[in-house]
């Protein structure tokens, strides 16, 4: 399996097709000249509903972390009632290890804007907000520039070729966040958009029914929307010719892993970067063919699959197939954002776990006790194990605390949002797969004997 031509990176020189040093911002003229906005043209010749059906048929799955089928999400919208409906574009990209959306925002923002326009037509959304993380200063400037170009070229605005939607001319705004990971969670994002602290909301109601300002709202990731234009332009069969189909006997209600995907690879490899391949590519292929192999010829030890929330795979999973089933097959949370962090044999997994716990304890929004207290507790436990001051029982305690938080059944449904699931899976998979490293770090004796000894010594 190998992609025979770049799709999302068509205009962004990327190995093996191009040299990253040749990258430059694609303005709207260059975008038009290279077949841009063809997908939108096609979509405008179709009824909105037909576009939704087409995206549904393509089985495009969300690229923001959860992998929810985009077409299905779109079809959950209630019928239009003449009042406002929104699109919130998730460009918050704050998951450690993830930097793929940035590539599209830096160089080919119109690929995103085309997807936005198609989605607004398909779902009958009159206003879109691109919620971009505050630290992406340059990217926000580029995006504002591109949005301006799109207004001038009648993609959005009072002369938009989309025409009136819900009795209004379609608008698209860039909205900057202010440094909070939780605002990447879709309902935290909506709260933030409304001018409040980014506290995730209890679902239901789902945003498609009652989202921004209480109105129907679609939330999609940058890469998901960027994929929509090419699907419209080149068709469902083309899209489904890439990736991993459903195995025989699996019902069609279970989504498969079709299409190309951006993989952002960092860590102990020779050529870190963003690479585009079909879903289902092997980790080993990614490392050897794209990333120039492991740094200093060291041995592969572990990798975070798709942002720290997804947890790790072990040394035996070097050939792991990277598609939406990676979670079930290799006992991790899932493909996440496909932001892969590769770790070599010299990596201290206790330190990795401590780093991750620190992140989650800082970013927990504080609403749910298991998450707010648990992430902090894990950080403290891990810090003390790392310093060599932990006890054997701390390892089980760590495991128990991790396993007690999360919105999924694996977290006992004890929290509102998925941030806690990320903390749960990240820490649990590291402890499970590298338990020996923790065991050699802790003091073997029960705490009471240890303290008796230290009294005697003292």
């Amino acid at each position, binding site marked *: 399996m190998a992609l025979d031509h770049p799709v999302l990176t068509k205009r962004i020189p990327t190995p093996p097709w191009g040299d990253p040093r040749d990258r430059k911002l694609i303005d709207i003229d260059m975008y038009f000249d290279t077949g841009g906005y063809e997908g939108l043209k096609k979509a405008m010749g179709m009824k909105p509903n037909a576009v939704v059906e087409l995206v549904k048929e393509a089985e495009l799955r969300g690229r923001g972390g959860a992998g929810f089928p985009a077409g299905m999400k779109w079809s959950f919208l209630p019928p239009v009632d003449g009042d*406002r409906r929104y699109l919130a574009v998730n460009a918050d*990209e*704050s*998951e*450690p*290890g*993830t*930097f793929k959306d*940035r590539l599209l925002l830096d160089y080919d923002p119109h690929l995103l804007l085309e997807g936005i326009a198609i989605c607004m037509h398909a779902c009958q959304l009159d*206003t879109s*907000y691109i919620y971009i*993380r*505050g*630290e*992406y*200063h*340059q990217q926000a400037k580029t995006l504002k520039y591109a949005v301006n170009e799109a207004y001038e070229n009648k993609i959005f605005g009072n002369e938009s070729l989309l025409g009136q939607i819900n009795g209004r001319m379609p*608008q698209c*705004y860039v*909205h*900057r*966040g*202010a*440094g*909070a*990971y939780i605002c990447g969670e879709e309902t935290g994002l909506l709260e*933030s*958009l*409304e*001018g*409040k*602290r*980014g506290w995730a909301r209890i679902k239901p109601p789902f945003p498609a029914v009652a989202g921004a*300002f209480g109105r129907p709202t679609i939330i999609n990731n940058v890469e998901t929307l960027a994929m929509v234009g090419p699907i419209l332009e080149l068709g469902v069969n083309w899209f489904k010719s890439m990736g991993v189909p459903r195995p025989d006997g699996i019902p069609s209600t279970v989504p498969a892993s079709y299409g190309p995907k951006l993989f*952002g*690879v*960092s*860590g*102990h490899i020779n050529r*870190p*970067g*963003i690479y585009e391949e079909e879903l289902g590519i092997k980790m080993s292929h990614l490392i050897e063919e794209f990333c120039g192999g492991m740094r200093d010829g060291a041995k592969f030890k572990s990798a*975070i699959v798709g942002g*720290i929330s997804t947890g790790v795979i072990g040394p035996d999973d070097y050939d792991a197939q990277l598609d939406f089933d990676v979670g079930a097959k290799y006992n991790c949370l899932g493909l996440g954002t496909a*932001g892969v*962090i590769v*770790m070599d044999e010299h*990596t201290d997994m206790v*330190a*990795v776990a401590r*780093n*991750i716990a*620190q*992140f989650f*304890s*800082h970013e*927990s*929004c*504080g609403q749910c006790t298991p998450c*707010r207290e648990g992430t902090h507790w894990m950080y403290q436990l891990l810090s003390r194990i790392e310093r060599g001051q932990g006890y054997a029982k701390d390892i089980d305690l760590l495991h128990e605390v991790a396993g007690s938080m999360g919105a999924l059944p694996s977290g006992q449904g004890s929290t509102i949002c998925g941030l806690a699931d990320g903390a749960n899976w990240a820490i649990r998979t590291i402890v499970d797969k590298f338990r020996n490293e923790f065991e050699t770090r802790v003091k073997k004796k029960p705490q009471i004997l240890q303290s008796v000894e230290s009294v005697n010594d003292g």
Partner: protein
Amino acid sequence: MAWIVKNSATMQIERREDPYLDDELKKMLETEVIPRFPSRQAATLPVLHAVQHKHSWIPYQALEEAAEFLETSASQLLDTASFYDDFWLNPKGRYLIMMCQSVSCELLGQMDLLESIKAKLQIEPGQTTEDGKFTLMTVGCLGSCDTAPCALVNETLHENLTTENFGQILDGLE
């Protein structure tokens, strides 16, 4: 940690004659930002960004002015502003160094880099140098993992940092 709050009942607010949210800024926000949203409160983040862009931080008086402008309460604005790491409710240095401490950066030497910068500037993360030039912070992930370790200095991203080249970058700042 966004959820840690302070007792503000006895707090004194420093005031000045000139408004932070002046007429010019208000006019710009009224024409360019407010019409984007169905509620005025939704303009909170853009308004706070604009105030901070102009004054480098957000004094309490500015929060009160912004609350009036957004037709909401000052406490509501404080609630929002204090939640976000990027909003400064205290003065910060002329250069804000945000050092990325993601796993990718730590794997590639961020710890040593941080130690060297702490020693160079003689401050801990969260502190500002005595001359008011630098404030040092650590942040979750800057989204530049392929060029780790990295840091933002104000709005400029610096990539593939070493103790040497980062020291030189900081020395080169006015």
